[in-house]
């Protein structure tokens, strides 16, 4: 759906050059919700704004739905943009228009016949649950309601792609959840591809299928959300995950003195498990099969999108061979193992 190749963006302010995107490549598949996370100033907005050419790339090409968006004329670009919806952190609704006419706006731009346009607005209002607010001006709406209008407006021309620039960042956690649910629902029902950027790992955790971590103008990590959550490769990804899931093993545990274990060895490992395996008694069958003692030092279970996701810190005591075999057993059953300390 989106193919970004070697995208570089340099802003020139006076005689200063700011490298906002450094050779970024990325593919977003049709029908998925793809999240880009990064700290403020990392280059997220620049990236998403290049996709509909609100920002012109310095180098690189972008394809949207097979069309090379970076090679279009002004007129072609206007037509292409009608099929790329966008929602914003501060909603950007017109204060001079009612809710109904705000949703009409993109249909006027696309010159959709009045009668059909009205019908579409009506059904969009139903979809976002704002039928009773049709004749109200945006100033009378709450943040969540404003974003619903924003979403309805973005969908009016039946786009194949929705871009979301921090759409929930101005909302409280509860409203955020309801907006994310709406996005998820639209994604499922309409098969709409969504590219969203955020600085909030909760957003990634709640709705995204895949995620890219952007740090300092570069993409440093990319993958399925579950994969990144269970096995982050970079300090940036780890610290983002740390904001929503506690993966850190308390320091006291890491440095706990070993008791006399008489020829046996002690190893501290972290086990991460995802999905179905979280429900199976894998740990206990390992203990039975391999003659290992296990202390559960710490554990938690969370949910990433709709999948259970857990972390366990285990202290394993036994002969080194037995422990190795035990860990292999766990790995073979799809668990992620990280050895934190071994004597």
């Amino acid at each position, binding site marked *: 759906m989106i193919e970004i190749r070697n995208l570089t963006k340099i802003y020139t302010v006076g005689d200063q050059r700011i490298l906002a995107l450094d050779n970024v490549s990325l593919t977003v598949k049709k029908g998925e919700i793809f999240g880009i996370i990064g700290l403020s100033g990392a280059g997220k907005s620049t990236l998403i704004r290049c996709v509909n050419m609100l920002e012109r790339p310095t180098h690189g090409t972008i394809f949207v739905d097979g069309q090379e968006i970076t090679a279009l004329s002004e007129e072609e670009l206007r037509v292409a943009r009608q099929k790329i919806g966008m929602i914003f952190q501060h909603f950007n609704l017109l204060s001079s228009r009612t809710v109904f006419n705000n949703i009409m706006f993109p249909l006027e731009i696309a010159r959709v016949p009045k009668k059909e346009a009205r019908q579409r607005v009506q059904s969009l209002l139903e979809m976002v649950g704002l039928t009773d607010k049709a004749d109200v001006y945006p*100033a009378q709406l709450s943040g969540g309601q404003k974003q619903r209008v924003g979403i309805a407006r973005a969908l009016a021309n039946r786009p194949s792609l929705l871009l979301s620039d921090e759409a929930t960042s101005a909302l409280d956690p509860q409203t955020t959840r309801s907006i994310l649910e709406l996005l998820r629902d639209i994604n499922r029902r309409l098969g709409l591809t969504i590219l969203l950027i955020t600085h909030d790992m909760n957003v990634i955790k709640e709705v995204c299928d895949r995620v890219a971590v952007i740090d300092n103008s570069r993409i440093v990590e990319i993958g399925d959300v579950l994969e990144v959550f269970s096995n982050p490769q970079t300090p940036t990804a780890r610290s983002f995950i740390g904001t929503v899931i506690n993966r850190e093993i308390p320091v006291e545990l890491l440095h706990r003195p070993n008791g006399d274990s008489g020829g046996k060895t002690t190893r501290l490992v972290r086990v991460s498990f995802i999905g179905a395996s979280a429900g199976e008694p894998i740990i206990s069958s390992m203990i039975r099969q391999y003659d290992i003692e296990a202390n559960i030092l710490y554990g938690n279970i969370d949910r990433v999108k709709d999948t259970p996701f857990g972390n366990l810190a285990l202290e394993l005591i036994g002969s080194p061979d037995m422990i190795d075999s035990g860990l292999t057993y766990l790995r073979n059953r799809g668990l992620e193992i990280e050895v934190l300390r071994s004597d």
Partner: protein
Amino acid sequence: MIEILTGLISQESLISFWEANSWVPEALAVATWETIYMVAVSTFFAYVFGLPLGIILVTTSPGHVLENIRVNQVLGSIVNAVRSIPFIVFLILIIPFTRLVVGTYIGTVASIVPLTLAAIPFVARLVETSLKEIEWGLVEAALSMGASAWQVIYKVLIPEAMPSLSLGVAITTINLVGYSAMAGIVGGGGLGTLAYYYGYQRYEDLVMWSTVIVLIILVQSVQMLGDNLAARIAKKRR
């Protein structure tokens, strides 16, 4: 003022006062009408030219929908140049042009030319200020939907700036009331001429003061109308 008041004390003197001044109300009415006419027509034409000019000044600025730095700089300089000429000087400066257009440079119709020309850059800057207040996010939202520059202008910038634009019309009108009085001094007609010839040159206090009162009423009414209109638009959107 004192003279007028003491003159009113006895009925006899009241009658003779009236006889001496019975021409004033009619002269005042004619002059007021001339002023309203001059100001209304020149405000109208000032917007016919100034509104597009203001829009161009905004939209050709760097990063905007019709970005064109050269056009922006040239128009900006012209606007600034005209605005820096004091109106009374401008009035005299363009007499040849006024003659060319109207055939004369004296009278109500002739005054409309300098009034309009002086107000155009003023209106352009007012419009520019109003449109610049519009959040850039709104323009971007429209662009993201595929809006053309023209659609951004007439569907976003102008409707969003409407409260501020209508205040601008009031400010322009009030300014033109003042300018028209100046034009009156060099024979432009209206309240300015009345005040100058009868009030200043002939020391007719009654004329002088009535003119001042009419001017105050005019300016107040225009301001109230403008405020009202702006408030009504803003309130509807609240």
